[in-house]
């Protein structure tokens, strides 16, 4: 079980969190402008990185807030966690 440092609450065990997939994928502001391929890429295509990976977590059984984290997928070690709107 991972220890995840919620930027609002501090380090907590993984069972308090839910995973939110890859970070920094903004929903297109005008989806109607996108062709099927671009929309499909937004919906379904995600990186499968070996190494550092920016991802979303929600402290669902704590403060309830979403935040971002950078995790090394080969070791499961986090290099940082940061609030929505911030950059690592």
């Amino acid at each position, binding site marked *: *079980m991972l220890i995840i440092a919620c930027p609002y609450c501090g380090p907590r065990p993984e069972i308090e969190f839910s995973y939110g997939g890859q970070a920094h994928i903004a929903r297109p502001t005008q*989806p*109607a402008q996108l062709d099927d391929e671009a929309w499909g890429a937004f919906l379904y295509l995600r990186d499968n990185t070996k190494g550092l990976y920016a991802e979303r977590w*929600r402290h669902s059984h704590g403060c309830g807030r*979403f935040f971002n984290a950078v995790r090394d997928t080969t070791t499961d070690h986090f290099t940082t966690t940061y609030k*929505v709107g911030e950059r690592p």
Partner: protein
Amino acid sequence: MSAFRTPAGGRIERSQPVSFSFDGHIYSGFAGDTLASALLAAGVHLVGRSFKYHRPRGILAAGSEEPNGLVTVRRDAARVTPNLRVTQVELYDGLVASSQNRWPSLTRDFGRINDALSRFFPAGFYYKTFMWPRLAWKALYEPIIRRAAGLGSAPTEPDPDRYAQRYAHCDVLVVGAGPAGLAAALAAASSGARVILCDEQSEFGGSLLSEAATMIDGIGALQWISNTVAALAQNPRVTLLSRTTAFGYFPHNFLGLNERLTEHLAHPKADAARERLWQVRARSVVLATGALERPLVFPGNDRPGILLAGAARTYLNRYGVKVGSVGVLVTAVDSAYQAALDLHAAGVRIAAIADVRPQATGALPEQARQAGIEIIPAASVLGTQGDLRVTSIDLATHTAGGGVQFAKRVACDFVLMSGGYNPSVHLFSQSRGKLAWSEAHLAFIPEISAEREVSAGAARGVYGLAAALEDGHAQGAAAAAAAASAASAASAAGIGNAAAPRRFAVNVAPVSVEAYLGALPSATAPAKDKAFVDWQHDVTTRDLALATREGFRSIEHVKRYTTTGMATDQGKTSNLNALAIVAKTLNLPIPQVGLTSFRMPYTPTSFGSFAGTSRGDLFDPLRKTPIHSWAVERGAVFEPVALWTRARYFPRSGEDMHAAVARECLAVRERCGIFDASTLGKIEVVGGGAAEFLNRLYINSWTYLGVGKSRYGILLRDDGFVYDDGVVARLAPDRFHVTTTTGGAPRVLAMMEDYRQTEWSDLEVWLTSTTEQWAVIAVQGPEARRVLETLVEGLDISAAAFPHMSVAHGRICGVPMLLFRVSFSGELGFEVNVPADYGLAVWEAIYAAGQAYGMTPYGTETMHVLRAEKGYIIVGQDTDGTMTPDDVGLSWAIGKTKADFVGKRSLQRASMNAPTRKQLVGLRTRDPNVVLEEGAQITASPGQTPPMQLLGHVTSSYYSPVLKSSIALAMVSGGRARAGQTLYVPMPRGDIAVEVTSPVFYDPTGARINA
């Protein structure tokens, strides 16, 4: 005293004899024995039959790596534990154990025929042999193979025991309490660290327990252990856990330990926990897991009586048991000579030592020569003889040409073997540490740690007692220092200066690093007998050769094809030999062939320990509504819906479900019914941006929804598929009351929070779950208004003043109320929301008032029938995550003028509007009494045989009491255009003809709902 028990010595309590049974025979041993040592003391080596060939097997090892000796220990019908290793079963008075995988008995096993037929059972035989006829696999081959190739059987009764679980934190967790682990714990504890020391054995000391003659710092090894353990036990910052296996190493230094609390007791207390699962978060970890002796691979190396040299030494020195009368040692390393020397000193005849090396020149071989033991250098083994016990061994010597030639047959009743040691890197590998190949050790040893972890002693290839103690001490000090630097200043206050390096004076010579890997040199002519690599899964050198011949190159593939290393012992004794043999066949260096991953658990761990208290009533939280007790008193039958327990129907005496539901349905249609809808998910969406928030999220338009009005809302995911539905009411310009499906409430709130926090931070919105704040009492039926009129205060609920989909605050029975005029039944309906604490009282008041109007309580089953008669879908039953609003006939709800909402862009894809998409339709059977099966498939024509052309499937199906006919909802390709067509539902007893209809079976104009 048995013939094989020494007159004195060992860790057993000779004053405490205990009686036990094995396969029905009564034996006696002593407290402190394991089942293995007690059986060996009685001269019993044969303890099992092998997995595939049913070959007789004896005890190979003395520890948890034992591959052969798997037994079932039975206390009573519910306490039957299969697949326990004889080497780990501690003896208690009255212990009942039995062997496995044999019929009719261990000595006369019918399955032995598999050995004679073994040419039909090569590696991967089940992929090749049992392919035809296809149906025979399920009916014939699989059951037979499963019976023949079984291990133990699971108990037939539920486990009556209690399993405890505990979380723990420490600065340093030391795994393994042999010399390195004890020294590590001493060093870490002396610097003030909080230490947990665990060991899988019944007492601490590890290999030292077999070293009574060894002196450490001038005191005997056994005394040194007890002094050390006493010193650690006195330290309040140290936790000592014996009989505790560290079975799993998870990320961020989280380790699972399984502590066995009562397995070793003759009469455990009835309320005692049987095992305890420790979930330990350690700042740093010391892996002092030692090394396991490596067997040698030669033909016939699996006969009972053939065992690891170090194991024989442990049986002699720790348990006072001689493993036989006349023995032969086959070795490639000096260290194994100590076993022969100790047995010789104990009066056991060592007939020969066959040393694989060209010369045996070390100090221990020299002692053996002086003791008069014959040493055959440059030796190999051609085979062994004996059925239920080894009787002789054929030794050979190397020839100049690189082959071997027969030297002589030596009679014996045991054979010791040793190819050196494999460092126990299982936990290190689980922690994702990087292993490096060591040519000196002929083994993989830890190189780069992935976690804050250090290995110590033999686990990292540091052999010899003095070296292991020193290394353990140094690594323990390093681990404490690492823990201190990892901790915040405040919490690390307890850890002071690191312990200074320490040397330990011992009276044993340093050990040179030696090993042998792979099969022993063999004759050019194929050996008659098999040479086993993996004892537990019956994998031989031939199987590995076959796998490489058939093209398997990756060790991961060879492993799965031959199943080597895949048994319950995870190849503790076999993996490296298998790897070396494959590498040799492929002519590749071993590091290039790679090593398979070690996975948790290190040894099999009971399900009870993982489950803990999460079983029976405590398996999941149980959610009950405020009205639950009333339903219980009325004899309701309940069903689980998500975590909720809901009343399904209220049978009167003599009624089955069908009769009760028919009565409840008609009562609602003709008079009125009362239904507990409290489980509905409820979310309050509040703020200046609330309407816009819902506009962006739901397919509907909310801007012009007036205060005091509600609307049926549909939520999609961005892939365009229906995710949830529910009534959304506007309580104030900036306040909405959103309802969700019972099961969908948490995920809808999570989805809302996701968009609110991460996409639309421009909107001022707050979301609050109010599911459990409101009790919801649905009053449905033509008489519903008359019932409520007498109870509602300050609110005109007449048809004109309070039409369908109205919402208003008011009071009922003196308490605050939020009243909805909504209907999921198709009748005039209200949903009375009151604060949950008043729910039961208000329910009882409405029910009492309703008696004059024939009010009947109804459950979820009736609710389902009523909504199906109206063609109302249930998300998750009629939808499956691949249905658009149009598929289920809800495109009318889409806000046409909205530029965007979640899922809108996906609905514009061509395939989302294909005319062949499955659409919601109604089905009526020709025979009104035939009720279709939910999930049944639908075809266009009768009499089809597989592969059929399937048009869709039945999603909901009931008998409708009001229509006196069966009804069904179905998703059918191009279904709406098929109205009036006859389709077919193929069933085992023939096709059922159905007519496609509108999904609205009852009151299609909605006159009743607007009454």
